[in-house]
């Protein structure tokens, strides 16, 4: 019987690798910046180990795909607070990787305390990578009106103009200060934990794997982490500021698309001081008056443009489609197809699966070889529509926050992924079974932004500048 262990990627990876080394697991391929998805333990050669995005781990353990996992307690709570499940057992506080979840505002915000938040007249806008905890927080505080904006990242850049509060994880208050945020309350605190699937604990002998964890982690004062609201006095850190009307708000992407955008902006002489890799700031200063720029995740832009936080944004058509499939009446539209960063959105299967097309997959489903089709994707709405349109019943969409190619073949049957050249897929022993559509970078806008005449004029000028870049390429 093979036991399955999931380990986290990301900032906690180095600490986890050091812990496992101390515990005697010996993973030569799991280190601070290693990229292997399936490291092997020399001590436990029969243990199947997968490296997943930390946000994906709790759901994988809850659904029984993994017997054991290491995961920050914040992400476990994020799942359990919304989906009351007893499928996850928190086994051991591992004593490292402490993080706190802070309720923050900007230093230019008028919200200086939890009491001020409670007495806000309009809806309280809360931005967070932890939408379930954010909702639980709002309910606990009995906020009469609130909006939760789930984001993929760059949470710190939203307040004060584009959100009233940010719920952010950090290792210290100083870390928040560097991002221009001021914590007004601490709402959750916890270390990395060893978690287990309840059925696995009840039915499988996992003692050989559990023992080194118990031997190595110090006996810590395990307090049950619960959502609490402990206020932090930050009164003297606030400053006042005025945000002028009529300013056009732009969002530019970080990550993979950024290099394309930098090149494009250079071509159209749109100078943006501080928009380079690595990013020195998420608020680069534009040369034009009357516009403000923030750098956010391209995944978050369609939603942020729809709700009026940004007037214009550069993202990909893939993310725009994902948004419109979920919210068909969303007031966000493509204004200019910028033509760069061309990728194909594809359905992908593992090379070992005897399917070259979607009809082959359906045949495998009919014959019972695939009882429920598991589709993993970062594009959950594109994946859902794909399954519906192709009548792939029954199916499950498994949301992923990255490294999706690691899901095949054990934890999913199909991926909906983007592919530029297809080399990453090939390297992971995967194949394309269908092309869904092509996606390029595009300028998107909110159809309601044009009501303000000052903004309308500025937006018109900006669109002309961007169109120039296309004409120059004969596009």
């Amino acid at each position: 019987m093979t036991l399955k262990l999931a380990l986290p990627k990301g900032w906690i990876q180095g600490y986890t690798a050091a812990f496992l080394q101390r515990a005697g697991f010996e993973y030569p391929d799991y280190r601070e910046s290693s990229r292997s998805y399936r490291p092997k333990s020399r001590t436990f050669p029969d243990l199947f180990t997968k490296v997943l995005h930390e946000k994906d781990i709790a759901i994988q353990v809850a659904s029984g795909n993994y017997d054991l996992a290491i995961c920050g307690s914040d992400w476990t709570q994020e799942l359990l607070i919304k989906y009351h499940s007893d499928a996850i057992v928190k086994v051991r506080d591992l004593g490292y990787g402490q993080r706190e979840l802070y309720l923050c505002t900007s230093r230019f915000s008028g919200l200086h305390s939890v009491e001020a938040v409670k007495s806000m007249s309009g809806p309280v806008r809360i931005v967070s990578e932890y939408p379930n905890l954010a909702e639980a927080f709002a309910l606990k505080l009995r906020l009469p009106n609130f909006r939760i904006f789930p984001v993929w990242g760059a949470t710190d850049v939203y307040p004060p103009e584009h959100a009233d509060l940010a719920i952010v994880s950090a290792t210290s208050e100083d870390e928040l200060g560097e991002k221009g945020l001021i914590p007004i309350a601490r709402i959750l605190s916890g270390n990395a934990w060893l978690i287990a699937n309840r059925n696995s604990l009840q039915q499988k002998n996992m003692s050989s794997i559990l023992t080194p964890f118990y031997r190595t982690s110090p006996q810590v004062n395990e307090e049950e982490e619960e959502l609490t609201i402990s206020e932090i006095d930050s009164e003297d850190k606030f400053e006042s500021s005025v945000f002028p009307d009529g300013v056009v708000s732009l969002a530019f992407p970080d990550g993979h698309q950024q290099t394309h955008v930098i090149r494009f902006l250079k071509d159209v002489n749109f100078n943006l001081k501080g928009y380079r890799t690595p990013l020195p700031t998420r608020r680069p200063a534009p040369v034009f008056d009357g516009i403000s720029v923030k750098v956010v995740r391209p995944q978050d832009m369609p939603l942020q443009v729809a709700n009026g936080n940004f007037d214009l944004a550069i993202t990909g058509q893939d993310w725009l489609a994902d948004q419109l499939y979920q919210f068909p009446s969303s007031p966000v539209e493509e204004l200019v197809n910028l033509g760069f960063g061309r990728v194909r959105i594809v359905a992908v299967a593992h090379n070992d699966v005897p399917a070259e097309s979607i009809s082959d997959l359906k045949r495998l489903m009919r014959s019972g070889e695939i009882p429920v089709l598991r589709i993993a994707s970062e594009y959950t709405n594109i994946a859902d529509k794909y399954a519906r349109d192709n009548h792939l019943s029954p199916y499950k969409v498994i949301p992923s926050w990255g490294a999706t190619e690691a899901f095949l073949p054990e934890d999913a049957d199909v991926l909906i992924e983007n592919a530029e050249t297809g080399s990453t897929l090939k390297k992971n022993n995967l194949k394309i079974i269908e092309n869904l559509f092509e996606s390029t970078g595009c300028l998107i806008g909110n159809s309601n932004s044009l009501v303000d005449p000052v903004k309308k004029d500025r937006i018109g000028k900006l669109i002309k500048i961007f169109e120039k870049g296309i004409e120059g390429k004969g596009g």
Partner: protein
Amino acid sequence: MKIPRCKGANDLMPQDMLRFRRMEEVFRTSCLAWGYKEIRTPTLEYLHLFTSAGTLTPEMLSRVYTFLDWDGWSGERVVLRPDGTIPAARFYVENMRNSSVARLCYVENMFSFEGTGQKSRERWQCGAELIGETEPQGDAELIMLALEILDKLNVSPVSVKLSHVGLFKTLLREIGLDEEEQARRLKEILSGDASILNNIEGQSPGVRRFLNLLLDLRGKSPGFLENLNSVLPGKLKAVKHCIDDLAQIVELLDSIGQDYEIDFASGEGFEYYTGMVFQFYSRGKLLGNGGRYDELISLVGGDHVPASGFAFFPNRIDLVRIDEAESGPVKILLTSNIELVEGMKYSFEIAGLLRAEGYIVQLDMGKDSEADYHWLVSFEKKGKQILFNLTDQTTGEEQSQLSRKQLLEALKAGAK
């Protein structure tokens, strides 16, 4: 492939539906006769209708079904209605705020998550709400209406339990707890644990003794409330008006000979309750409950308008008896001995005729079990005439070669 029903969802079987419809029908006709108007609010409401303090407790809110609607890009969440009274209050504010008194009733389903999947996550409620300045007759009207409904449903015996959430709110304030502590304690009382009042430290012996009496005794007469008033410590005199409030209802129940029990420990209920609360029991089973909610209308955006209401839970009323006579008119199985197309034509025509007389008629498809029917009717063609054979399944008696008129007469005679 077998696709089971969703976890936590229940099918209602034909017998359940008969009981449900009977309950619903008695509830509706009684309410309409008392001047209540039936409404139906949408299944989807904005989440924030339920999030203000004084509406639903955080514990209840943590179990509601919330999600982003198709146009939820603004971040605003919607919810599958977890409660009937709050949407009715919203309905009143939106549509009827100028009417001095509104009598509303509804039969609606509510949704609330339950972890084991053993209990249904969808519950039905037959609710009546009386909104406007009607105190104290309003509470009395609601209790009398509820008792009439239970009586018409032949549910017996019925006992009424009375308590007073306003009394607890006043008590917690008067014994000197800060606001946060008051809210915390009230939450526990509303979830059914009033005994926490015994554990509040720092109270004088007089107050402690009064709280003990309040929770331990079960009053069966107006005298009980008089007794409480006479041992009320000076510090708690503000609760006197709550006790007097109850006394009026108790006297009314006494005068009609209705069994009741004043049980302050049974304060279980919703956070929006502000005054008297009541529960209806039969054979140890809670059938429904209600209470006064004077702050709710203003919490959902209306003026300060007092109100109270009650609800029955049809899926808990398995005490409603459905006997054979109520399960519908007499059933007939109709068989044709004529070739197919012509036979079908006559079958539909004859079945229509019998249905018009009030019988349930099913056409024989050759698969039905004859035992399920009171009458078997078959027909054949003799020349131009249709002749009928009739079997009474309950007696085994057969009559043959009947004309249409004779058939109807024989059925009528047999039904007697």
